[in-house]
Structure formats: structure tokens, C-alpha cells
């Protein structure tokens, strides 16, 4: 019963707030292929190829958080913290609250923004004159407000549905072992 209620809530919230969202598209399937290749290249230490594949994945599925995370990890390996910071922020703005990868990305961001040890402290420049106060627009008129509300409701509905209907542990694909070894 609780599962049915959760499904109804999830469907209603999604239908109301996610009009542009549709079932997985061809672009998203292609993005997943690029992502798989990018992750494999990252694990193999081929960071240039990883960056190219992950950038393609991100371009095809710009709303997905995961490609940004892998892009950031790759760019750190390439020594490109400037780009990594952009992708870390892109990931953090899309990842749901409580996502276990958030801590990892925050730690990477901290390392990236840490000042290099060779920086010599100098006297701070004089403070500029304060800008004249401006009237702040109402928060509900900010471009991101309703997007954020929609994303939060959809995420909450999905998490609630999952929690109420879940009847077992998470899964990973099985491996098969035979005469020639084991393979996923």
C-alpha cells in the first residue's frame, strides 16, 4: 500500500514539474556509451582520452551529474584545477543532498583551491569604495528558483519511492568464471 502511494506521489510530482523530462533518449544512451569509455580510460590512466569521452558524455546529457564528477577527477589528474573547479560546481549543483560522492568532490575542490606554498603574503590593496546599494529582486523571481524547487521535489519523490518499495540490497552485475577466467 505504501509503495502504491509513493508511486502515485512520484508520478504526480514528476508530471507536474518535469514537463521537458522524458524517457531516456537516444542522446542519453550515447552519453552512457561515452561515459563508459571515459571511465575506462580514466581507470587505465589515459586521461586525455578520458577527458574527450567525458566531455562528449556531458554535452549529450548536460543535466546528469555523474559526467561532471568524472570530468573533474580527470582534470585534476591532468593538473587542470581551473576546469576541474567548474565541473565540481556543475556536479554539486546537480547531485542530490546526501549523495556519497558530494564529500569526495568537496575534498577535491578544497585541494584545488588551496594556495600554492610558494605564494608570498603581501600587504592587501586598499579596499575599494563600497558600491551603492541595489534593490534585490525577490527570490521567487530568480531564474533558478523554480528549477531548484522542481529538482528538489522530483528527487524527494524518487528517494521516497525507492525507500518505500526497496526490498533488497543494491546490485552489481554478476561475474561468470569458467575455464578461461572470470568476466563481468
Amino acid at each position, binding site marked *: 500500500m505504501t509503495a502504491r502511494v509513493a508511486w502515485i506521489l512520484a508520478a504526480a510530482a514528476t508530471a507536474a514539474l518535469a514537463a521537458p523530462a522524458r*524517457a531516456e533518449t537516444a542522446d542519453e544512451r550515447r552519453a552512457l556509451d561515452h561515459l563508459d569509455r571515459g571511465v575506462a580510460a580514466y581507470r587505465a590512466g589515459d586521461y586525455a582520452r578520458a577527458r574527450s569521452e567525458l566531455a562528449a558524455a556531458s554535452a549529450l546529457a548536460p543535466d546528469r551529474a555523474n559526467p561532471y564528477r568524472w570530468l573533474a577527477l580527470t582534470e585534476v589528474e591532468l593538473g587542470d584545477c581551473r576546469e576541474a573547479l567548474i565541473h565540481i560546481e556543475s556536479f554539486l549543483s546537480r547531485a542530490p543532498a546526501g549523495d556519497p560522492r558530494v564529500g569526495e568532490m568537496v575534498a577535491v575542490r578544497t585541494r584545488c583551491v588551496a594556495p600554492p606554498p610558494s605564494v608570498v603574503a603581501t600587504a592587501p590593496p586598499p579596499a575599494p569604495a563600497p558600491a551603492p546599494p541595489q534593490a534585490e529582486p525577490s527570490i521567487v523571481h530568480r531564474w533558478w528558483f523554480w528549477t531548484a524547487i522542481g529538482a528538489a521535489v522530483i528527487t524527494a519523490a524518487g528517494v521516497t519511492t525507492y525507500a518505500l518499495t526497496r526490498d533488497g540490497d543494491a546490485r552489481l552485475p554478476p561475474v561468470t568464471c569458467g575455464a578461461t577466467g572470470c568476466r563481468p
Partner: protein
Amino acid sequence: MLAAIAVLGLAACGDDDPCAGADTCVRLDVRSASVAAIDQLELDVLYGDRHATTTTQAAGGATTALPLATAIVLDGAGDAPIAVSVVAAGKLGAGVRGTGAAHATVAPHDHAALAIELAPIEACTAGALYCGGDKLAGDPGVLYQCNAGGVPLARGRCANGCTTRPGKDDQCAAGGVACVDGGHYCGGDKLAGDPMTLYVCAAGAATQPMLCGNGCLVRTGQDDACR
């Protein structure tokens, strides 16, 4: 988003046994008190007299929360029960977050279950040999090689037990039967050593070690040999 929620729900409501439909299979339940989630599970599997290393991961490198379940399907199982030893390393990003090990015996055409607890890794020396449980996760009756940044690699099961030697590589014990001078033996078969290395017996000791790339085969009534 609808599709994602639907897939999530269907997955949650599906059959709970990852071995469902398999002939000979070992269910693997992985949990941890210190690791919340992983994106890759690296497995070192010793099954019967075979050994392999493989990796399972969710599509797209997605993160999977613990506890999780997966399965090791054994193809072409014969008529005898198969001893299965598994060492698992849970990874997130590029780092190993925890390792654990377990072993079981599964009868042909039957299912068995293993539970592995991932614990923070200890500091073993890369390339050195250790009995399971001595600075790395593993079956105490199996000799492993420490693998920097990955799952420990099984060298082989020690028929006569595994001996811990502080300051030196651990090794498989010789057992109670003496080797014959000039004979060739795998480590752990009548002389102490590495089960993936072939030795020549000299006054009961292992000499002239030769590494066997594909494993060492113990043969009754004749010299052992590399595969």
C-alpha cells in the same frame, strides 16, 4: 526522470536472488561499517584449481551504496564440489576504500552464499607475499601478493597451511612428507614456498625457484610442473 524512477522501482521490486536462473553460483553479499558506497568492486577469485581477477561495476561508473549483492556464476562445473575463495576490493574514484575476503564450497548445480565485510586496508608492501589475514584481507589458507591500489592477488591455496614469517615473504607450508632430492615441486607441495613457483628439492629445501606464469600443477607420482 519518469523512466529513471520506474527503473528504480522495478529494480527494487525484482527477484532478490542475484543467482536466480544460474546453474552453479555463489551469491556475494558485500557490506561495510566504514564504507558507504563504491563505484567498482574488484574481485580476486580462486575457484577449484583456477584463479582469475575481474571487476564488476554499475553502468556508466555510477556509485552503488552498500550493502550490495552480486553473484559469481561458475560455468562448466564438474561433478566435484568447488572451493571458492574471494577477495574483494571496493573502489570509489581511483582509490580502494576497503577490502574483505570469504570462502565457501559449492556443490555442482547448487548455490552457495558468501558475506564479505569491507574493512579499511592495511599497509602491505606491494609485491610481497602474505597469508590471508596477515596485513591484507584474504583466506588464511591462501597465499596472496599485495597489489598496490587494488585487490590482493591470490597465488594459490596452501594444502598444508600458510605460514606467516615476520620480515620475510609468507609462504605455504611443506607438510609432513619430505620431498625427494632432485625432484620438482610446486611451493607448498612437500616443500615450503609459493604455490605459483616450481622449485627443485635439495636436502628437503626449496632451491632454483622458477615462476610459473599460468600457475603450478601438483602431480601425483611424478614431478610437479608449470601449467
